[in-house]
């Protein structure tokens, strides 16, 4: 046990400052090196390993979690193409770890805003899905808000208030509906976005 913990710490250190060749645990080193070779950010893998070490998780679990992070980052990078930032990829990876969030949802958010970082909209998508909103609806709402030029602060406030309402016992859809009513008047009208309009969002459909 101790050997693996030390190895994990070494892997963390190696990823930050030296090559992975000196890493004691070959599996973790391999995961990190493979991610680096694919041009993926390694920080999320390192963070997961560090979290596992701090939380005294079993070594096999840490390795599995690190492998899962690497796999999801690759999916996230592809879904958020063509030019995702490291934060975008990290947010996408986090999102794909949530049950129900799909690469199609990430691609829809990217399509709504192809030029700007999307880490915050992806984060709000995750907040809504984790609160109980169905992924297609959460995706449609977030892409609509992005298209209507909602600021990061507005998006985060929406996600936080819905999370808070649900924690107080509210129905998630009712909370989202009510909070949207309060937010929408302050946004640009439909169609004002230069990317897409509410009627042409990917995946939008009549209820």
């Amino acid at each position, binding site marked *: 046990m101790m050997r693996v913990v030390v190895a994990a710490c070494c892997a963390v250190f190696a990823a930050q400052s030296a090559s992975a060749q000196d890493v004691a645990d070959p599996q973790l080193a391999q995961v990190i090196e493979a991610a680096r070779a694919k041009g993926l950010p390694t920080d*999320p893998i390192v963070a997961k390993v560090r979290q596992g070490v701090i939380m005294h998780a079993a070594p096999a679990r840490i390795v599995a979690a690190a492998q899962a992070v690497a796999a999801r980052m690759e999916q996230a990078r592809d879904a958020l193409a063509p030019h995702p930032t490291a934060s975008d990829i990290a947010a996408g990876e986090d999102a794909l770890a*949530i049950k129900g969030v799909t690469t199609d949802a990430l691609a829809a958010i990217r399509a709504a805003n192809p030029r700007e970082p999307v880490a915050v909209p992806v984060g709000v998508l995750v*907040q809504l899905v*984790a609160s109980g909103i169905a992924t297609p609806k959460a995706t449609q709402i977030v892409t609509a808000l992005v298209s209507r030029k909602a600021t990061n602060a507005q998006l985060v406030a929406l996600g936080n208030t819905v999370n808070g309402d649900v924690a107080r016992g509210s129905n998630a859809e009712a909370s989202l509906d*009510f909070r949207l009513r309060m937010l929408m*008047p302050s946004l640009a009208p439909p169609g004002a976005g230069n990317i897409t309009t509410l009627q042409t969002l990917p995946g939008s459909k009549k209820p």
Partner: protein
Amino acid sequence: MRRPWHILLFLCLATPRITRAQWQATANAGASRLKQGFFPETNAATLSGTTDYLGDYAAFRLAALGSRASDDRLTGQWLAIASAVTPTWRLLTLQATAALGAFAQSHDVPTTSADVGAQLRIGDLTRAVSLGGGIGQSAHHGDYAVHSFFDAGFSWYHEREGLSLSAAIGSRAQEGVRASEWYLADATAWVAPHTGINLAIGRSPDDVVRGVPSARYITAALRFTTAPHVTVFRGPLTGPRIVAIRSNGESRVEVAGVTAARVELMADFTEWQPVSLDRAGDVWRLARAISPGLHRVALRIDGGEWVVPKNLAKSDDELGGAVGLLTVP
């Protein structure tokens, strides 16, 4: 009960859609008490329903109401309303409306009506006022009498957490008789996402075409709707709550709802190292450069177990524990 119900539907603008065209349906089952002119007061059981289509620039509503009075009188009415709505400009919306309706009562022949009107709405999706007016005709099919009328009215709408409130007041001018005032107030407390308790009071104008004086009523009903609502009965949010703030380019997190001597935070942006927060009045604060986006966090109060802040959605951390999902602007 007939006219205020009709007029409110006619004058109040349909709630604009939020993100896409949508349908919704509402049903009410309740009891009313009516006072009409010199007639004895009566009670009535009422059942009503509406179906709405809310689009970008158009709305359609089909409504029906039936009642059975304590004197065994049965009434029924329906109303179809079609509206064209302009885009909102600085909280202003214009709407043109056309309505067709019919009213029938046991031991009497039906009356029909047709109205056209226009309304100006000022407000947003949770609170608004509107001014409107319209002209129309109603016909009594027993004596073929036809009367024209002109309505002018003011309405108010406010939706707040768990409550839907509306009120309207106006006047109806009719051929050959003095103007008749009407008003109504309607409040619904949502006790469940799809169920509310509705109370309404109102006064109808004189119904000249049927020769019936104005009526006052009070109604209590259960309201059911397909559109979910935030409910009035929600528990307070107790326990630690966290929020991320970005101000003047600097980010920080604040934890509230904690009575403790020490609060620690562990997150991906602390490299999963426990970091003590600084007390700042009623909140605990950590100023740190945090990238915008989704982050995973956990809190520890006075050296206890690591917990997920109450206001955050929870996620499995794949390591046997749970973390909170915090989005940083």
